[in-house]
């Protein structure tokens, strides 16, 4: 799993209009420049908001991607909930941090980059 790479792609996509155009024209070629697992590649190519949330993508990144995909607000929230129902709890990143703060202290090393 390469949450860092998934988020890096979305970070770039959210802020670069040229990349947005390239992605619209050829999703697979654009995604091929990032080190993604097959599941991550597919989730990004298909705009699977629920699975991306379960991967651990920060909502502040995912929300912008959903807006880019023209997903309405309440649909966006429901897609995340549906992702948890289908795939289980968030696997990494800031939303996976529980346990009295022990994991939080490690977040910089294992959360956003795991």
């Amino acid at each position, binding site marked *: 799993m390469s949450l*860092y790479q998934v*988020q*890096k792609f979305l*970070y770039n996509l*959210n*802020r670069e209009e040229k990349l947005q155009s390239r992605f619209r024209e050829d999703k697979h070629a654009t995604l091929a420049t990032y080190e993604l697992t097959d599941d991550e590649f597919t989730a990004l190519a298909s705009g699977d908001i629920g699975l991306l*949330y379960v991967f651990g993508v*920060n*909502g*502040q*990144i*995912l*929300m*912008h991607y959903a*807006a*880019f995909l*023209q997903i309405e*607000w309440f649909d966006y*929230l429901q897609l*995340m*909930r549906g992702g*948890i129902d289908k795939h289980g709890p968030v696997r990494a990143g*800031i*939303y996976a*941090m529980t346990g*009295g*703060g022990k994991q*939080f*202290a490690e*977040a*910089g090393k294992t*959360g*956003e*980059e795991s």
Partner: protein
Amino acid sequence: MSLVYAGILSHAPGITGRAHLAPNAAVRDAFYACLHKQAAEIRASEAEVLLVVAAEHFANFFMDNMPAYCLGIGEKHTGPIEDSDWLKIEKTTIPGAPEVALKIVKSMLKSVDLAYSEEWQCDHGIMVPLHFLTPNYDLPVIPCNINCQGPPLTPLSRVWQFGQALRQACDEQTERIAIVGTGGISHWPATPDSGKINEDWDREFLQRLMNQDMHKLLAYVDEEVYSQAGQGGFEIRTLIATAAAARGPGELQFYSAELPIFAVGCTVARFEITA
């Protein structure tokens, strides 16, 4: 002194983007009225520059090189990065204040390890405040970011020192400077829990903030904040820094947890600026 205004306000994207979905229009409009009043107060202060202490959301900074603090020294800034129809704010160019910003950076570097950038793209964290405070984008803006999104985060004790350094830097300038800190209190933005607000926690925090109760403000720890106030609660850094810069007591002008569609307890306040 050149700091002529200090205040805080919420910046959640729903404030503009989902205004039409707010079922409680009276509360929404009362909130907007306070934001417009804040704009009038800033104009009345005759501020020449507006410095926005914000908590951006991966518009400029990512985990490949994440500064704890950064100031925008560019001649201009752009925004919003978000889809304009979604945020209900048109993409635009915002004038910067490069000379003043550079002087502030030089001053602050004496005590704070501050990054700077000549390129700045604004997300809703700055665009929503500007939409209300300077809707014609005719007031030069210095954007400032405190990393509140990608842990590890700067400790609150350092945030207070940052605010103090910012005040010192403003005091050294001849230009009239207004500061607004913009961040959420408790909120779980952009997650399935969006709309959840811990009003009791918010009101306790705001009481500490308005009272300039430094010891109680700095007593918060991130683990507790995350548990009680969500990951959005990390943005209290922007509000604490602004209080430290102002030094004087605050006046809470608006707070409401009755607009969950905006995904934050909507807040407007200003501080007295004291020596």
